[in-house]
């Protein structure tokens, strides 16, 4: 929309100079008797310059050409946003807007010009990945999560979408480590893990849904476990898994999240065994859960049973259901 590329009337060069010396209209009546000051050679205003609201004479042909161009651009914008909105809207919403039959016909047409569902997912995943990259760029291992006094705690609900496992998971529980530098797999009991220093922190747990709660946690640092059982060289990720998670009907449905080792090594990343000074309840992930307050709540996996270190990013339960993979706060 800049001036240089527009076709110009074949006019003498000096006519391109906007004559800013034209007295503002208000002055015309009061100063009509005075001679107009000679037009100084005003410099041509830059692209950004706000032009004074003073009437100017413009060749009709040029005005018409410029207006036509602007309206064509405007119409192109309207069509593009209409197509874009149609492309990006969820199917359910589209069907509600125009009815199922018209929706199917329009979708077929949109698909012909490349606005397919597959491309939509690609574009939306692109936005998500971009946002994840921004989050990762913002992340600093040295930045502490804000902590609170234990008196500032707020009620923490159990928001897990499945059922809570029963106490039968506790007696034989072990934490299984794979992908270690030693090449061996480890099975650690709670007593093994209690040998690490115990840390406490009161932090805010933020859910992707928008609610949050301040809770008091205790446990061992993930960093201490990583130092004692180092991952294989080249590992950048930890795949954390709960093999005892249940779905809404009470069937076993493993839950799994990916955590980058940068986050795992953060001093406030805990393998929590305690809440409010007491061992974790089953509803909040007994006997051990991950507590990463620099990540959304859905990364804070409950009833953790397995940790596998890997070079490539492992699968993530909610990422497979359309949510972010990084989830950095």
């Amino acid at each position, binding site marked *: 929309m800049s001036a240089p590329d527009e076709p110009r009337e074949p006019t003498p060069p000096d006519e391109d100079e906007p004559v800013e010396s034209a007295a503002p209209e208000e002055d015309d009546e009061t100063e*009509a008797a005075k001679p107009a000051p000679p037009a100084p050679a005003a410099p041509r205003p830059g692209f*950004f310059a706000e032009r004074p609201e003073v009437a*100017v004479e413009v060749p009709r042909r040029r005005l018409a050409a410029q207006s036509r161009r602007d309206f064509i651009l405007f119409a192109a914008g309207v069509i593009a946003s209409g197509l874009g909105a149609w492309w*990006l809207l*969820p199917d359910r919403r589209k069907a509600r807007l125009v009815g199922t039959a018209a929706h199917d016909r329009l979708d077929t047409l949109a698909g012909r010009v490349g606005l397919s569902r597959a491309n939509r997912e690609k574009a939306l995943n692109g936005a998500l990945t971009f946002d994840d990259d921004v989050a990762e760029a*913002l992340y600093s291992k040295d930045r502490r999560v804000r902590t609170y006094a234990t008196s500032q705690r707020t009620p923490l609900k159990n928001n897990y979408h499945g059922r809570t496992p029963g106490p039968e998971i506790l007696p034989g529980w072990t934490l299984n480590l794979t992908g270690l530098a030693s090449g061996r797999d480890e099975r650690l009991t709670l007593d093994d893990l209690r040998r690490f220093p115990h840390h406490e922190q009161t932090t805010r747990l933020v859910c992707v849904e928008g609610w949050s709660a301040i809770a008091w946690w205790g446990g061992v640092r993930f960093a201490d476990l990583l130092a004692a059982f180092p991952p294989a060289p080249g590992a950048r990720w930890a795949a954390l898994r709960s093999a005892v998670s249940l779905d809404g009907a009470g069937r076993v449905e493993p839950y799994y999240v990916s955590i980058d080792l940068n986050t795992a090594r953060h001093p406030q990343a805990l393998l929590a065994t305690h809440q409010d000074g007491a061992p974790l309840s089953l509803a909040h992930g007994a006997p051990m859960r991950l507590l990463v307050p620099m990540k959304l709540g859905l990364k804070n996996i409950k009833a953790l049973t397995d940790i596998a270190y890997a070079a490539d990013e492992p699968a993530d339960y909610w990422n497979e259901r*359309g949510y972010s993979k990084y989830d950095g*706060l």
Partner: protein
Amino acid sequence: MYPAPMEPASPTPNAPPRPAVRENEATARVVPKHHALVRLTHWVNFPTLLGLIATGLSIYWASPVFKHAFDPATGTREWMQDIGRAIAPLVRAQGDPRDAVYEFFGLGPRQLAVALRLHWALAYLFMVNGVVYLIGLAAGGGWRALLPRPSDVRETFAMMRFYLGVIPMALLRRPWPHPTITSKYNALQRAAYFTMPIAGALVILSGWAMHKPVQLGWLERLFGNYDNARIVHLTCMVVLGGFIVPHVILATADGWDTLRSMVTGWSARVKEEPHERA
């Protein structure tokens, strides 16, 4: 950009004011109105804001902020559901009337994952658009037209009196002249156009405070705490959304010239006297 002028508006000092409409001549007299960047960002903002509000409502659905104790009479525990029940007959809502706001103005309930992804995509577009607008405003000096000035209090009352009287006086067929405005915008417009960039900046800042409360902890603290940032974000949404309705009504009522000037940048309303000095 703007139509480049050919000659001064009044070449001879003693010439009588020329009529604004001279259809048969080779030149036209027009007034430059809106910079190309203002027009571009204005029209990009419109679908972007509507999309942000629609996706934002579907995110809000997952965990409403404005709640009350469960009311057995209405079966709701949040204000958005109460509004939904009230508007359900108007929007002919299908399904649960309590979800009418989310269905009609948002993407609908249970759409959190898709709403979040769309919200991020549109939010980045909104931020880029806002930065382009602010660069143009700062570099071109357009911000001066938006600054409040001392005469605004008096002018605000004059404008409000004028707007209140427009319809009754038209019905009574009595003349109802527009107050004399000597600047680009009247006080009400100035207040609105001054508030919008601020609400836009606040909505972006509070959005980041919620989105990255740990890495941008200073921003979360700026809003007090996490939940306050959510309240500010939603309040700004109401302010921005509430601006659109009267803005569209007033711009349309002002006529084709006003609408066209936001596309082409020029107005054919050449006043031999200052704005609306009637």
